């Protein structure tokens, strides 16, 4: 046992000390947060410059009809289109909205300015023009717009879940996101760290140090030490990621919420512009709902099941990766043996994203989440939706049994494989190795 600890220590330290580990640990969360911040700033920055439109309405339909919005105002100069063009050249944020006299026939509208108008700006103007036209037509048909507005109904479904603690918000969006994230991380981790185990085995085999080491320890101890050591690297990386991203996002949220207050203030100022303000309030509501819903998810439970399924799935698959590594002389030869390992993972991931998420209690979802080869991914998707205890227990027991089984199978192949050189190995050969006595 002492020797396994030594091996774990070497495998762990030799990887954690690498520059690439540090880089990955800090880069991944900062990349995510950086992207988030960048999007936020771009979004915020875009809104900054107030735009002014000189409306030259030669059709007379839109005269004095446009409503000013946040950062967007309209005026109606008396001079002609030609003169307006000249003044527009002088001002950066001024556009001319030219509506031709035959608008009702052709629908021709031009926007001219020193700069190109953004898509958002164009659609704002378009929306307003469409609203104005619709109102005009409705009025002409004798329908009161006030009555019409009353007929608009708003439906907002609040899914609730009956639990022991009473009704809970069944936050479907947040649940989906959490399940997806957990499953995706496990999917990724199994590949990344499984491949590391495989590469480590190949390295020991090709550098021929393996025979020196197995004269001191049993092949099984070496394999186990490597698997556990690299698993510990994975856990360390995850813990650091969680710590770093919670730290960074706490800072980020502070920045965002102070920004939000400003937004609320401007909204209050611009109560006149109810149309736009209303939608942004709605957006805010959705976000608030999302976060409120996220709060109802039991994160301690999810993180602990995540760690369990990561460890279980990792042990199960990395033993197989180790067996593949032991059977080949270089990484290029691994391809023929990789399919049976990668196929169930990819298969579960695709099914998980399409079927399990939409139907977490279907019998397919159930089977996927208890079969050890698929359960780490499938169960992570199901857990945020709520899984009966007995299913969770069954899945956990089967996963443990599963990795004991794969480790046993893999170690029988591994002990022979690591001492074989220069031979092209087939599946038949692997089966033969498996049946060798000690």
């Amino acid at each position, binding site marked *: 046992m002492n020797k396994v600890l*030594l091996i774990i220590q070497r495998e762990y330290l030799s990887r954690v000390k690498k520059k690439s580990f540090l880089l990955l640990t800090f880069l991944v969360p900062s990349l995510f947060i950086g992207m988030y911040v960048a999007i936020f700033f771009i979004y915020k920055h875009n809104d900054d410059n107030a735009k002014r439109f000189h409306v030259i309405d030669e059709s007379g339909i839109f005269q004095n009809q446009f409503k000013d919005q946040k950062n967007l105002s309209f005026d109606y100069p008396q001079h002609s289109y030609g003169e307006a063009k000249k003044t527009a050249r002088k001002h950066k944020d001024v556009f001319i909205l030219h509506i031709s006299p035959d608008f009702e026939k052709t629908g021709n509208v031009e926007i001219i300015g020193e700069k190109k108008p953004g898509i958002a700006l164009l659609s704002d103007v378009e929306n307003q023009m469409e609203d104005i036209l619709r109102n005009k037509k409705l009025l002409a048909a004798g329908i009161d717009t006030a009555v019409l507005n009353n007929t608009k109904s708003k439906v907002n479904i609040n899914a609730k879940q009956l639990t022991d603690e009473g009704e809970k918000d069944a936050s479907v969006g947040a649940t989906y996101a959490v399940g997806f994230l957990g499953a995706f991380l496990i999917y990724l981790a199994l590949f990344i760290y499984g491949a590391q185990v495989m590469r480590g085995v190949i*390295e020991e085999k090709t550098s021929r140090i393996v025979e*020196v080491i197995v*004269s001191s320890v049993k092949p099984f101890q070496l394999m186990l030490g490597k698997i556990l050591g690299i698993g510990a690297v994975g856990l360390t990386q995850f813990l650091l990621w969680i710590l770093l991203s919670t730290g960074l996002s706490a800072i980020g949220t502070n920045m965002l919420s102070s920004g939000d207050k400003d937004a609320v203030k401007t909204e209050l100022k611009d109560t006149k512009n109810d149309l736009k303000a209303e939608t942004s309030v709605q957006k805010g509501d959705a976000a608030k709902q999302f976060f409120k819903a996220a709060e109802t998810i039991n994160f301690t439970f999810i993180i602990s099941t995540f760690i369990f399924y990561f460890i279980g799935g990792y042990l199960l698959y990395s033993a197989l990766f180790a067996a593949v590594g032991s059977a080949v002389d270089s990484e290029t030869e691994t391809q023929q043996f990789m399919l049976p390992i990668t196929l169930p993972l990819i298969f579960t991931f695709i099914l998980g994203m399409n079927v399990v998420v939409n139907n977490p209690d279907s019998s397919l979802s159930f089977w996927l989440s208890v079969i050890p080869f698929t359960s780490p991914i499938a169960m992570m998707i199901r857990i945020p939706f709520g899984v009966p205890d007995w299913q969770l227990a069954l899945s956990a027991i089967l996963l443990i049994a599963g990795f004991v089984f794969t480790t046993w199978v893999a170690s029988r192949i591994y002990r022979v494989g690591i*001492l074989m050189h220069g031979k092209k190995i087939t599946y038949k050969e692997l089966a033969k190795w498996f049946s060798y006595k000690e």
Partner: protein
Amino acid sequence: MLSIKNIVKEYAKHRALDDVSMEIEQGTIFGLLGPNGAGKTSLIRIINQITAPDSGEIFFNGEKLAPKHISKIGYLPEERGLYKKMEIGEQMLYLAQLKGLSRAEATKRIKFWFEKMEIQSWWKKKVEDLSKGMQQKVQFIATVLHQPDLIILDEPFSGFDPVNAAVIKDEILELNKNGATIIFSTHRMESVEELCQHIALIHKSHKILDGSLKSIKNAYRNNTFKVGLAHDLSDVTLQTAYLLASQENDEQTVHTLKLKEGFAVNNLLQELIPISSISSLEEVIPSVNEIFIKTVKD
């Protein structure tokens, strides 16, 4: 020291070792010889408990071979290597600790050996920065660091230049003088003659020869002598010996003569004295190499 009894090892359809037995005495340098694929490595791996025999037993100092003996054996495999990206010092510490040394003790001994080999500056170097010969040196030290009672060296001189091979040979002799038993597996027969007191030859999974170097060589003597004479014997018919070959030198002709049945070397001399003056007489003793090739061919 080591009793190997009726070892059988089979792989799928191939029998690698068939009822192999041998005794390795305490304090000897034991040459384990055999052509490629004869089963030497299989036997060595069984002694190292890397694999287990299908039947047969091995006793280490009278006890049945068990995992606790691992720390008493040092093994330098033929196919050897080190972690390329790991520092030499760390790597040696790791290997020594796997053999059961404490970190402190291992550090002390590594320092001792590094000074002895004058490679103190290598501690922080990575293996990939060393030449092949340097790596072999490090590997040799790693093999003997835990002061094993039994040292198994598989082709220890491969990869060494003559100067370093001599250094390693002296180290092997010194370890042996200090009480270590050494099993020495090689194809290089001249080093066998220099080092080994005892040899065993394995061929096609069977042990076909086993004994002290002297007795084996004696057994392969066939009453052949090289006699330097002033006269050429090609025209003479000898009563006591057959002439196998003759080679003319500046002042003498060296004749290779094989005694006929029932005659001793003195009979031959008696017959030669009247014919010619004798300048030299030497018995032809077969080299291990010749014995090796002869036995393997038969």
